[in-house]
């Protein structure tokens, strides 16, 4: 049984102008200790996915179809009490901006001890000892001192280390990191990502890394999902996708990397913008921007096609494999 299983998840935001689907038919699995990257443009539904996993969508968002199974239990069916004992304890989350995620009026120590005591029956001095150990694990200099400091006394990099330490405090099974390094400068970014990678490997923690930095994804994750307009369009082993992207959108993303540009020329870009979620084109949602658009793309939603170890939602990929796949299906029927 996979650690986390997301099945046909659909998230709706009920707005005055009508319901907007922020996620459509999202399915994936996560094994224990596995590191999964989620990439896509702004507004593709990456963060909504993160929040819907722990069932903390803020109003008017709600899960309208599908389910999230954690160790075989459907999280939506759990009582609020049970759900709270999973949040932070089994599944924790790290946010983008460390300036904002720490409470400005409480010391680091108080916040860490509180997290521990909210989920475990331990004394304050024991909790402090664990907090200190975690701070040392995230390589914070003079950790004892930090416990008595307030967030504003620390630098951005140090705050993000503390946020990571808090995320790891209760030995969770899954960490959902929502663009954990976006607010930091580039040198600190690398340090923090290395740190997260090491900690996840050491503690056998599964990581869901939400980002739009393909470099980070290729460095850290084993598998990745590419999202576009609320749907997964390609998923598979990170190496395969990075080296040989199948979906035209993923190819576009790879081409848009500065490394892919010819010196002196403009950077490559995918023409157009992502459609607003209220107004997604029929068929493949990428069709208005796709270079290889075909007739069928504007009419029929592309199904997932197996290509190597990847799943790709594109008619073009499906067409090129049409023959063998049909045969395979037939042979299964027999």
């Amino acid at each position, binding site marked *: 049984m996979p650690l986390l299983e997301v099945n046909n998840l659909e998230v709706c935001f009920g707005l005055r102008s009508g319901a907007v689907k922020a996620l459509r038919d999202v399915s994936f699995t996560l094994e224990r200790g596995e590191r999964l990257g989620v990439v896509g443009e702004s507004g593709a539904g990456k963060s909504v996915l993160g929040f819907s996993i722990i069932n*903390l969508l803020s109003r008017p968002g709600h899960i309208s179809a599908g389910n999230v199974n954690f160790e075989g239990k459907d999280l939506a069916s759990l009582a609020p009490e049970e759900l709270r004992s999973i949040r*932070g304890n089994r599944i924790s989350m790290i946010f*983008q901006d460390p300036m904002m*995620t*720490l409470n400005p009026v409480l010391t680091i120590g108080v916040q860490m001890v509180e997290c521990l005591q909210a989920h475990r029956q331990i004394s304050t001095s024991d909790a402090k000892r664990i907090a200190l150990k975690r701070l040392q694990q995230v390589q914070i200099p003079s950790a004892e*001192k930090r416990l008595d400091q307030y967030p504003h*006394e*620390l630098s951005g990099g140090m705050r993000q280390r503390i*946020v990571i330490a808090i995320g790891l405090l209760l030995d969770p099974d899954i960490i959902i990191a929502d663009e954990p390094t976006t607010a930091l400068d580039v040198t600190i970014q690398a340090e923090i990502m290395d740190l997260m990678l090491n900690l996840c490997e050491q503690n056998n923690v599964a990581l869901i890394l939400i980002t739009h930095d393909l470099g980070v994804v290729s460095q850290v994750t084993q598998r990745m999902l590419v999202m576009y307009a609320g749907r997964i369009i390609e998923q598979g082993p990170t190496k395969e996708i990075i080296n040989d992207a199948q979906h035209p959108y993923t190819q576009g993303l790879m081409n848009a990397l500065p490394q892919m540009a010819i010196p002196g020329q403009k950077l490559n870009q995918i023409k157009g913008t992502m459609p607003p979620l209220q107004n997604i084109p029929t068929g493949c949602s990428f069709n208005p921007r796709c270079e290889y658009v075909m007739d069928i793309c504007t009419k029929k939603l592309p199904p997932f096609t197996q290509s190597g170890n990847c799943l790709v939602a594109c008619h073009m990929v499906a067409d090129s494999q049409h023959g063998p796949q049909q045969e395979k299906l037939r042979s299964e029927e027999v």
Partner: protein
Amino acid sequence: MADSTQQMEQQPTTLQRFKASHFWHSFRIDRVAQLSFIVFLIYALLAIFASVIAPFDPYDASQIDIMNSEIPPSWEEGGEEGFLLGTDAQGRDMLSTILYGTRVSLMIGLCAVALQALLGIVIGLTAGYIGGRVDSLLMRIADIQLSFSTLMVAIIVLAVFQATFGTELYQQLAMIMLILVIGIAEWPQYARTIRASVLAEKKKEYVDAARVMGFGRLRIMFRHILPNTLSPILVISTVQIANAIISEASLSFLGLGMPVSQPSLGSLISSGFEYIFSGAWWITVIPGVVLVVLVLVMNLLGDWMRDVLNPKLYKG
């Protein structure tokens, strides 16, 4: 590593931190704030140690001699050494009565504001954090409450109480009644202010982070959001204490407040009012000045605190 710049510095103590803060700095350069604070401190000390400082006990009938009535202050003609600020119509020493009266006034002011704050914080926090229908309902109740003037509510409640249960019981319970009435009449001030800051605070990421950590609603409300709304609470508190003292004085002046046997500043002013044209001005004027100075000082402190704690006025 860039993170370790502060590594060698000694951890500052709370006192050192306070001394380095913007709050302390702006206090040190503001003469008005210093003066107000000192005066308020004197008031507080006089009120706390009234029974030690006062030469007489105005609540003790055996110390009062009616023959001593209406003696002017000692510097006036006909004044006596023993009665520094003169005596009132019943022969009580004005100095002692004012000291005890200040204690009563401050006590009612502080307790009433504590009650207001308690109600206002709980209601404002609930309305702001939970939102939706609960918010609408609580805020409409607050609007209705605010549409009655405090004094009107107080006069009706206190008069009805006096008429129903008799003056004797009322005099025993006067202080508690005043605290309850003033406390309950003014809670919407707090509730509204706190609701507004909670609405701003709850959108911040640390609240999301707390929810993600699996904390309960109550814990997030009282432990995470409330401390972040403390500065507006502090500011309105100073203004509200001044208001509560004035309300109490007004009610006492109207005869609905503290009884003459346990006078507050308001009832002292009121009790001397009949004698003001017969020349015994001190019975009204001296407690009046004491009251005005107390309220002024509270308001100045509140003004100063609002300036300091308002980040929009922060000049660095």
